[in-house]
Every structure is written in C-alpha cells, then in structure tokens.
C-alpha cells in the first residue's frame, strides 16, 4: 500500500475509486497562428466564450446560493469586453484563437495575482474560465464531473474550482484529495459543507491513476492507494466510532460527574440559527448585531432591529440569549455616522462601548429595540457591551440597560485592565463574557490580523489562562465566547478555570459536549492547573492533555 500525506481539512474516512479531474488543459504553443481568416477566428472564439459563459450561468442557477454568485462572476469574466478586444487584437496580428485567449487571460492573471487577499483568490476562478474556453476551442471533453456514478468516487485534482463542485453531493463523492489548497480553500469549505472527508496540500496526488482504489482519512490527512480490505474496514470503522461518539453526546453540556456547563452558540445573523438549534445549542452566547448596521448609508430603524432580535429570541424559548450591542470602530466604520478623526491604531481607538460615548443615541435605540423584542418571548435576554475597560464604563452601560427595562446587563472581558480588576467590574455587571481573541491581542500587544504574530493568538498561552482565571474568580457568572472555547481540550481547561458557559460556532458544539462528558470537574481543574504552571503554549497544551485521557476516544 502506497501512502501519500496531506492536510486533513474535513473529518471522516472515505473509500472509492479515484476519479482524476481532467488533467490541466495544455498551454497552446507560443507562436501558433491561425489559417488566415481573422474574422472567422474571432467568431469561433466568441462562440466558444458564449457557450462557456452560458454553461457557467446554468450551473450556478442549478446550484443556487453562494455558488450562483461565484459562477455568475466567472461568466462575467468570460464575456469581459476588455478581454475580448485583446483577443481580437492578437488574432488580427495572426495569433491562433487558442493562443490569443491564453495570452489575454494571462495579462489579467498577472495583475490579479500581484494583489493580496480577495483578488489573489480570484486567480483560480480566472484560470478555470481560461481553461474552459481553451478546452472548448480545442474540442476537448467539456470539463466536469460525473454527476452520478455506480459507486461513490474519490475526487482527485490539482485544485477544485466552484464550477467543479457546485453540483456534487455526498452520494457521488466519497472524499476529496487535492494537491494544492489550504484549510480555507474552496475545496475545504465545500467538503465540510457536504460532510465529505477531504485532504488538501497532498503532494503527488495528481499522479494517482484514474480508477485506483483510494482510502482517505480527512482527520489525519492520510491518502492510501490500493489499501487492503482490512485497512479499509479498520479506517471506516474508526471514523464511524468517532461519529457515534459525537452523536451519542446529547443533552445539556456537563462534565462526567454532572457539573453543568452551558454550551451556547455564536450567531452572526438569523441565517446561523438553524444550525445552532440542530446541533443542540442551549442558547446563544454571542449574538453579533453588526450585520444590522454595517454596509448601509442609514442606520436601521428600531422596528427593523426589533424584528431581527425577536427572530433569535423566538428560536430559544426559555433559554439564555446573550446579545452584544454594536461593536464598531475605525476598522468597521458606520456609513450613517459622521467619520471619526483618523485613528492610527483602530484596535486601540474608539471601538465598542467607546463609540457610544459619542453616539449614545445609537446605543439607547438598540437597547430600546431589544427590550421591546423581548416582550412576549420566553427567551432569557441578556445584553452585553464590548470593549469595556473599567468599572465606571460597566456601570454606565448597566444603568442604560436598566433605564431601557433590560433585566441583565453584562460586559465582555477582552481588555487586560478589565480582567485584572474583574472584582470591581463584577460589582457593576450581571455577568462576564470573555472574548479570548481580543484578550490575547491586548495582553500581548500583538495585532490579531498580522500573520507574522499568530503565535501570540494561541489561546494556550499561560498568561491568557491567568487572565481567564482572574475573571472567572469574580462573583458573577462567566462565559467564554472566543475561538478558544471551540477547542475541545481548551474547553475542558476553561471549565477547570471556573468558566460557567462556553459559546462557539455551532459545528464545534458536539465535539466540546463529547469532550466534557468524558472528564470530571477534578480532571478539568487538574488540566487547568498544569497548563497554568507551564511557561509556553506548547508546554501548556501538552501538560493539560496528560490530565484529559478521554480526548483519545475522540481521536483528538
């Protein structure tokens, strides 16, 4: 059995014959020329472009959702008039249609590839359009995948474009393997959405021969060629075991000895609610309200806000719903407020509650809308403010909440000053919610957006655990709503530090529930003590795991 290794980005195991997505469309030879009829050649290219664009649009319409936007944008690229005129110029100079298309696309490709972020990511989309047009001109089989197959196949490719994956389902694809891509690549995202195992960044993947039986483990990143029957059944069995461990952990979150830990969902808008409910969230621990305010020239009316808040409250009758008031700042400016003076360090500038000192009416309107939304619903509405640094700010916010008729006012703990004086803030606030990402950013004075400084964002940094412990020791209920809570091992440590509730993206809920159910509160405390005694994040992680043997059941 030959084994390739890549990065597992979507868990589970899959087995089936390899289906190699078309080898790359060959580059038309430089200097290739057409037969001397430029008008006919342009018409031939135009017809090919139109077929490709229409096909992309049709796939997008069939798939719907985000795929429709992506494929629609690709159709616009295919029909781009500036591109067409470059192609026509090249053809007029004698270049063959295929080569003209190739060269014209490459000019734009270079421009986009030099940019960062969003634009660079569009390069794959542009390449895909180019290859489709050239394949069409060369009469190569239209790229695409069998939408049905006698047995599910393992899709192998250099990288996958949205057009490739738009119509795939779990029934036809057993697993994905790509040579390129990372954890946020299109392949990883689509695989997780479909619930299909995937391995990306797998060197040598595209030399796998079509039809080769392939076993893929999307947790470990293993890609085994021609495995034995025993190996296949063992891998599928352990993936199933893991699955059953996850599905068997149901009900409210608690440690093995019954210490309750509320498991809540982070929600960024009404679209996230169904997922949160289906994964057993016991409420909402962080409802971000920015979606109502950003990207608009006029602020939302209180009526519009009330309707949006009521939607989330009605999804969780009898449960806590923690709403964070608007968290805007120089990096997330609001179109309907006058621009603030230039702030050289937005993260250290007027953010969160600090904005409301100037624009108090925005906050008061939001609190009023929340109070009205809660009338007649059974959810337990709690409201909290971001970027609170002092007890005086906490009191100011709590007073505003009481004036609006809101029963529970809390603060986010994301500034070290607030964590260090948690006792004073607890006298003013009804609850705490720790935002670990910003707390790490401010504790280490390390911009969380900077890739070069990611080590400081590691939630296992012992100093961060110290700040969490200080916060949790204060005399009010304390939750964690940062990324840290979605790591099952870290979740156990947070509980050991005294945290009462954990809020996370819905997909992490079953994992955290299962991890807590496998450990006693004493084990969680021992893991927390061991982690705090360490001096580095790596040591803390290793030290904690020694006290958390049940993580092995989850293959974590």
């Amino acid at each position, binding site marked *: 059995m030959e084994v390739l290794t890549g990065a597992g980005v979507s868990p589970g195991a899959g087995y089936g014959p390899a289906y190699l997505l078309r080898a790359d469309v060959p580059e038309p030879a430089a200097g290739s020329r057409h037969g001397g009829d430029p008008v006919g050649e342009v018409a031939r290219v135009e017809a090919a472009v139109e077929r490709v664009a229409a096909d992309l649009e049709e796939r997008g319409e069939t798939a719907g959702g985000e795929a429709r*936007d992506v494929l*629609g*944008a690709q159709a*616009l*690229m295919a*029909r*781009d*008039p*500036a*591109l067409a005129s470059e192609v026509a110029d090249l053809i007029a100079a004698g270049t063959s249609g295929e080569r003209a298309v190739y060269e014209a696309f490459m000019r*734009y490709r270079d*421009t*986009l590839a030099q*940019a960062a972020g*969003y*634009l660079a990511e*569009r390069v794959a989309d*542009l390449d895909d359009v180019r290859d489709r047009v050239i394949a069409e001109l060369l009469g190569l089989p239209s790229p695409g995948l069998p939408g049905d197959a006698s047995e599910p196949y393992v899709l192998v490719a250099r990288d996958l474009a949205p057009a490739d994956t738009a119509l795939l389902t779990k029934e036809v694809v057993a697993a994905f393997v790509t040579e390129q891509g990372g954890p946020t690549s299109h392949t990883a995202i689509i695989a997780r959405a479909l619930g299909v195992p995937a391995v990306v960044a797998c060197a040598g993947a595209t030399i796998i021969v079509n039809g080769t039986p392939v076993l893929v483990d999307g947790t470990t990143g293993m890609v085994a060629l021609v495995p034995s029957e025993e190996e296949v059944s063992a891998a599928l069995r352990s993936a199933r075991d893991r699955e059953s461990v996850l599905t068997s952990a149901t009900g409210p979150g608690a440690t093995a000895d019954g210490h309750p830990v509320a498991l809540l969902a982070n929600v960024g808008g009404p679209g996230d609610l169904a997922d949160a409910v289906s994964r057993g969230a016991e409420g909402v621990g962080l409802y971000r309200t920015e979606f109502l305010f*950003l*990207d*608009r*020239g006029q602020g939302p009316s209180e009526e519009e806000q009330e309707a949006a808040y009521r939607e989330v409250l009605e999804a969780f009758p009898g449960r806590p719903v923690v709403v964070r008031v608007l968290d805007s700042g120089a990096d997330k*400016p609001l*179109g309907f407020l006058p621009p603030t003076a230039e702030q050289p360090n937005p993260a250290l500038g007027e953010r969160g509650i600090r904005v409301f000192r100037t624009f108090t009416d925005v906050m008061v309107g939001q609190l009023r809308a929340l109070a009205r939304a809660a009338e007649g619903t059974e959810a337990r509405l709690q409201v909290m403010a971001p970027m609170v640094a002092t007890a005086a700010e906490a009191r100011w916010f709590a007073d505003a909440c009481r004036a609006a008729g809101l029963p529970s006012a809390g603060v986010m703990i994301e500034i070290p000053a607030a964590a260090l004086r948690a006792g004073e803030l607890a006298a003013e606030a009804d609850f705490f919610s720790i935002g670990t990402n910003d707390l790490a950013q401010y504790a280490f004075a390390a911009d969380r957006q900077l890739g070069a400084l990611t080590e400081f964002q590691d939630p296992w940094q012992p100093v961060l655990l110290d700040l969490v412990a200080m916060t949790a020791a204060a005399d009010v209920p304390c939750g964690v709503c940062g990324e840290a809570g979605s790591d099952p091992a870290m979740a156990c440590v947070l509980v050991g530090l005294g945290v009462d509730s954990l809020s996370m993206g819905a997909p992490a809920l079953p994992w955290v529930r299962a991890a807590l159910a496998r450990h006693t509160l004493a084990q969680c405390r021992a893991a927390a003590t061991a982690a705090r005694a360490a001096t580095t994040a790596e040591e803390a992680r290793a030290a904690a795991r020694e006290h958390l043997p049940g993580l092995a059941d989850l293959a974590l």
Partner: protein
Amino acid sequence: MPERKVIVESEVGLHARPAARFVQTAAKAPIDVTVAKPGGTPVNAKSILSILALDVRHGEAIVIHADGDGAEQLLDELAAIVSTS
C-alpha cells in the same frame, strides 16, 4: 460629459457581488461607461476584470463617466449600487 464622483460604501469595496452588479448594469447600457479612481486612468465599466484590477476598497472614491442617451439615468443607477449595499 456627464460624470459622478461617489464613495464606495460596500464593505467589500468594488469587488465580489457589488462589482458583479455594477458591471451587469453597465453592460446592459448601449453607451460607453468608464470608471476611474480620482486622477487615475479610466477603465471600461463593462469589464469585470478591469474593475477588479482597479482594486477599489471600502471608503474610496471613484469617478464614473458615461456619454450618450440615458447617461444621466445610468450614472444614477451605478452610483446607487456603489453608495448603498
């Protein structure tokens, strides 16, 4: 020649969905339309690749030009796309 100077309000700048809507709207018009950053070289507003390559971010200004029948109305439509969202 009629023109509008507008601030791009969409969070993603003149990219993704706003860029697609912008180009689709421009492409439907039978007249020439261009976009430029203030003082920059104008590009064809019907070309998604040229628009993307301009790399207009949230909060930046653009100048939209159009010439011919219905230019004013088209400019209003295009300005609305980038200044709301």
